[in-house]
């Protein structure tokens, strides 16, 4: 409760604050940039261009339409997402972070290059839909891409196409848990000699749940396994680096970036 009161108090203080003199505003943005680079850039990308976490270089942030809401996120994180409260901030640190994040939002160079329509055609012709769902349609082996343009920045999307294993999503879902790689490829050999290849669905100290390419589930006790190889850095998705021209890649990224979720 107290935390909320404090948040509200800061929010009010920010709202009540008269427009600051230019020098102070510049100092706040600079201070906020330093804080952002240390704590936020790894997920949100340098300059808030997006990465593992949503881009922030857009005028309206879904969870933070107001400064008070942004302060609340900085102080508390966003429940049930990968966004933590990184640390507690002083009032001036909070002000600086808000100033910087808002300054990034005003850059409005967030337009992603490429031809969305051509990218959509490319998505179809490459057969991406055999493994990915967009708007409820498609296969279920890989991540649902319905709002991928909202959740990820263009640099991340590009890397995910060129080198999928380097960009396994981390910790957005409740399962397995925050911070764990999702769609982690596994190679498993049981003590009876059976082999299972698939992706990790969930895991605990004593058991592991796996889904193979055919969609079949396996529930395995670790004590029954001869080998449990977690193929970190790999993905079941093939790289498309050699199958796309640079222009085609740019179009595909533009299409994915345009997927902002169901209205």
């Amino acid at each position: 409760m107290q935390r909320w009161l404090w948040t509200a108090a800061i929010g009010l203080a920010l709202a009540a604050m008269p427009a600051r003199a230019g020098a102070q505003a510049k100092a706040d943005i600079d201070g906020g940039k330093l804080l952002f680079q240390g704590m936020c850039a790894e997920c949100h990308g340098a300059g808030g261009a997006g990465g593992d976490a949503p881009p922030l270089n857009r005028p309206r942030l879904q969870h933070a339409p107001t400064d008070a809401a942004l302060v609340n996120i900085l102080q508390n994180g966003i429940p049930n997402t990968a966004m933590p409260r990184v640390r507690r901030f002083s009032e001036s640190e909070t002000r600086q972070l808000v100033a910087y994040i808002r300054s990034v939002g005003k850059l409005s160079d967030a337009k992603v290059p490429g031809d969305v329509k051509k990218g959509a055609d490319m998505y179809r012709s490459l057969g991406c839909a055999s493994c990915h769902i967009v708007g409820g349609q498609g296969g279920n082996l890989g991540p649902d891409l319905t709002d991928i343009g909202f959740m990820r920045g263009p640099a991340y999307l590009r890397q995910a196409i060129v080198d999928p294993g380097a960009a396994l999503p981390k910790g957005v879902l409740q399962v397995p848990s925050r911070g764990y790689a999702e769609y982690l490829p596994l190679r498993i050999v049981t003590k009876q000699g059976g082999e299972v290849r698939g992706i990790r669905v969930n895991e605990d100290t004593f058991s592991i749940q796996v889904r193979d390419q055919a969609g079949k589930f396996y529930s395995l006790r670790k004590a029954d396994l001869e080998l449990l190889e977690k193929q970190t850095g790999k993905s079941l998705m093939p790289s498309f680096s050699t199958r796309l021209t640079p222009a085609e890649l740019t179009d595909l990224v533009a299409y994915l970036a345009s997927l902002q979720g169901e209205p």
Partner: protein
Amino acid sequence: MKTIIRVMLLAGLAAPATTFAQVPYDRIVKAESEPANWLTYAGSYKSQRYTQLDQINKQNVTQLKPAWVYQLRTGGVFETSPVVVDGVMYMTEPPSTVTAIDVRTGRPLWSWTPKIPDDVIVIGSPPVNRGVAVLDNMVYAGSIAGHLAALDAKSGALRWDVAVDDNKIGYYLTLAPLAIDGKIIVGVSGAENGIRGFVDAYDAKTGKRVWRRHTIPAPGEPGNETWGGKDSWKTGGGSTWLTGSYDPELKLLYWQVGNPGPDWNGDFRQGDNLYTCSVLAINPDDGSLKWTFQFTPHDTHDWDANETVVLFDATINGRSRKLLTQANRNGFYYVLDRATGEFITGTPFVKQTWAEGLDAKGRPITKPGLDPNPEGILVYPSIQGAANWHAPSYSPKTGLFYQTAVEMGTIYYKGEAVYKPGIGFTAGGGRTINGDDAWSAVRALEATTGKLKWEFKLLSAGRSSLLSTAGGLVFGGTEEGNFFALDADTGKPLWDTQLGANIRGIPVSFGVDGKQYVAIAAGFALFVYGLP
């Protein structure tokens, strides 16, 4: 009809009588002689969290079955360590409710909830409670409102209630009090609020405070010079948020002291910051200090020293020693002489990147340049520590110290230090490197040396509290909800079951009607297991 009534009467008469708490101090001193009861937070004043019960053992542990489950009425982080006396369990529900339960059925007998103001300040931990103390006919519990209450053990009626200190400036209680001869000892949480920590002793019958031992010396007292000569000592933290241990023969109370404040920015508190990150040996009569030992001088990573200190006796180099040991949050396992405070040995029990080692007196030889900074710096162990509140266990049968060791790093940040009463005074923080890159292990250390005997890896960086038993078992629980038993000699997993939510509870064992049980809280429920 007549027959039925007669049968019911007979059943009633034959029903085992439950006697409510009648726990004189002497019973707690000899707690190990009545293993069917769990009379104090960590099982005995030695805090070994070991049970002499051996009915559940290596041979039959696979047959364990749930006996009953008690569900919380509201959610919360459930970290209780129940106390069990003569067929009644006294345990706490988050944030500060005390409930008495019939251990034969799991049915509550009474429940008491203190008044918690809507604007209660709880910074530095979730609003939890780790248990009660029982003495004579009373049950004692702290609250997040910063109070200590004494309840009638039979009815749950309030006998007395005192404000330990002012919650408006950040003091609150999460620990199980410790009951000694006529006194109730408590510590406080709040080092993330710029409090000045202390250990308090209250008259068990009246609630009158007998003494207060501040953990940070005032000007003119020895040790104040370690605070940089400014007012930093006034807001220096040093909370005392986990239950201490006691040696009735030496008549010394051992209490652990937390981190200095602000946590991650040491600029305004130059010096060792005594007695933060220390253990204090306290005379229980007047609160005076017999000796002190500081584990982490001038801490800037929140590696408080509140972890349970375990007492046992052993022969080292041909000499019989009274020992005090701790697996410290800073990553080192320490063995001290508990009569004198002399450092005997210390060794890392996890990956740590901040110290070259310990010198002959146990002081860490720190590596330069690893203080938090605004850009962030990666250091092991993590901000939550190699150890934390989760309980260790020591088995006199194996001579091993069991500890869940957390293998995780954190990117530490230094922030701006601005003190305002009741507002977090932490000046920084950290981002843990979690997920697939972090893990924990139940480690069995040779208790006199810290040498690793075996380990059992847990998937994630959870904080499993442990219980060791005369049946040769170590019980614990994982973040993913696995309640498990390991072979205490080898670490081999012998049994596990899935409780459906992260396990934050602290396992205890007790007996009733000739049967042994093990209890542990997971998610929003308390589970009790026994043999069929």
